[in-house]
């Protein structure tokens, strides 16, 4: 009798020790992940918010009243808009081809799509200079037609598109893959044209992946500096984007207005991602109820 009680007690004790140790390890892991993300992401963000607003609202309004700041935002807006439209249309097309078609060199193309993530934007800028700058491969062609590429908007858009290519393709590809061809085939047998099929069946199904890819592309285009710095020449009031303005503001010891612009850029990206996350969540909840 005593033996049974004793052995039973020690077994449950061992289980309890084991369970509490598991809980402890899990707690530590959660704490580690939380502090890793918050220290590396939230701390700098909090820092920039504080730096931007400590000078008071005057600095904010002063900053946005400046002609060079307004021009910088306008330029960033143009570049981002053209970039996002281009990478959305061509990215959707490329994802489609990569998922649905089989052709020699497909794996190579698949790997090539990742290239902009692997190459430093500075290198991308240099490549553009080599192609379009004085003595470059295409410089004579455009110079003869009076078109300025380097140190002008075209090259700035070009390098921004280059570095933003992967996002739409990488977000849409897996969704297309998962979707399969069944629904599209069903639409075709029901009399839909390929274009109707795309807009009524394919697009609604990849919508969230596409929006995510667009949001990531927007964030990337808004924040780009390395490649644009090299190809633009950063001419104040002409080829100076918002990020380039931040760069100059810090050099010229006008930190406060630099922080305001930087914070504005960060806020746009974060709001964009948060909005999509919310919509997506709401939609999936609607579909389930």
């Amino acid at each position, binding site marked *: 009798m005593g033996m049974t009680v004793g052995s039973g007690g020690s077994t449950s004790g061992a289980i309890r020790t084991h369970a509490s140790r598991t809980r402890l390890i899990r707690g530590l892991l959660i704490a580690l992940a939380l502090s890793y993300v918050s220290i590396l992401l939230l701390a700098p963000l909090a820092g920039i918010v504080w730096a931007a607003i400590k000078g008071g609202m005057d600095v904010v309004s002063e900053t946005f009243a400046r002609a060079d700041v307004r021009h910088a935002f306008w330029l960033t807006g143009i570049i981002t808009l053209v970039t996002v439209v281009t990478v959305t249309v061509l990215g959707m097309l490329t994802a489609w081809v990569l998922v649905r078609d089989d052709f020699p060199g497909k794996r190579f193309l698949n790997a090539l799509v990742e290239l902009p993530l692997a190459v430093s934007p500075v290198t991308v800028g240099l490549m553009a200079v080599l192609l379009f700058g004085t003595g470059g491969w295409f410089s004579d062609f455009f110079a003869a037609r009076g078109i300025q590429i380097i140190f002008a908007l075209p090259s700035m858009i070009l390098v921004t598109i280059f570095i933003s290519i992967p996002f739409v393709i990488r977000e849409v590809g897996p969704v297309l893959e998962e979707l399969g061809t*069944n*629904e599209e*085939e*069903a*639409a*075709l*047998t*029901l*009399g*839909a*044209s390929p274009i*109707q099929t795309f807009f*009524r*069946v394919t697009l*609604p*199904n990849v919508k969230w992946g596409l929006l995510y890819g667009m949001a990531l592309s927007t964030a990337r285009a808004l924040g780009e500096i390395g490649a644009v710095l090299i190809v633009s020449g950063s001419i104040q009031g002409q080829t100076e984007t918002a990020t380039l303005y931040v760069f100059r503001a810090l050099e010229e010891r006008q930190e406060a207005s630099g922080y305001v612009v930087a914070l504005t850029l960060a806020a746009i990206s974060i709001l964009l991602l948060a909005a999509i996350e919310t919509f997506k969540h709401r939609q999936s909840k609607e*579909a*389930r109820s």
Partner: protein
Amino acid sequence: MRPAIRVNELGKRFGDFVAVEGVTFDVEEGKITALLGPSGSGKSTVLRMIAGLEDPSSGEILLAGEDQTHVSVQDRKVGFVFQHYALFRHMTVSQNIAFGLTVRKEPRNKRVKRVNELLELVHLGPFGDRFPDQLSGGQRQRVALARALAPQPKVLLLDEPFGALDARVRQDLRRWLDELHRELGITSVLVTHDQEEALELAHKVVVMHEGKVEQIGSSEAIYNEPATPFVASFVGAANVIRGLVIGGRVQFGEQQLDGAEHLNDGDAAHAFVRPHDVLVSMERADGSSSPAVVEALSNLGWTSKVRLTLPDGQALTAQVPNDKLEGVTEGKRVFVDLRNAKVFAPGGRAVEPSDELAAV
């Protein structure tokens, strides 16, 4: 009468792989025709070519007498039902059913009327506003059927429509489809690997194997008069007894079977005998009976499966109604009478018959 669908010398290659070769058959107006075969036999590829979802490498397809071989999918006006439903998951049941009318720009009031008709037809009246993922498998397949019927197609093509459902739902849906077909009388082609489904629903069965047609005929003909060893073993269960041809009969061990008049003396022969054509009795009935030993007995409800060994060592399975067992038990010596044997020369395009049941 002109056939609703004519498939003529149809072929399909994927690279070096020949998926379909020289397939020819007719589908009669208003009837259900089944394409029956194991997976990989090319039956689904044939159906997809009829729909226009796959381009034939050779041959032609005629719908209502008109060559449609190179007409695009959306202009063929066929209804297609997929194995995995393929419902539009971002649309409600009603929107799914209306899709074929919406893309053809049918006026709204006509659309609504037709959708309501079809919801009633497939017994899903109250489910119009649901999304596909809120329905059971059987309900989804009924929506898929309603959606395919909505634009009033000339023919209905069904690709393993019950393949993804469990046995009970499959039975119900099969009976329901049969009733629906009697009501609507729409020309239908049903692809299935389930011989019972084909025999029950189809007016005509096209048996396919390795991309070719093995036999075309009514359910009765396919089952009772198989043209090839493959059909004999694939459609319904069959024992395979190996022997030699002597004087137009198959000799195995000490015993003989009729039905080998078409083979030459001395040839090897495979005799296919259905389990229910094996009569088991405790006494020798007449000259054609062979002794056998009962190895095992298992009850299947109102019948029993009796596993036997013939004197020359070959295995044999009999299916016997329980009230005809008359004292047959494991280990007993009994007599078997083999009826309706179909004799074929071994080899050819047949699957290698196993000693056990070739198909169950």
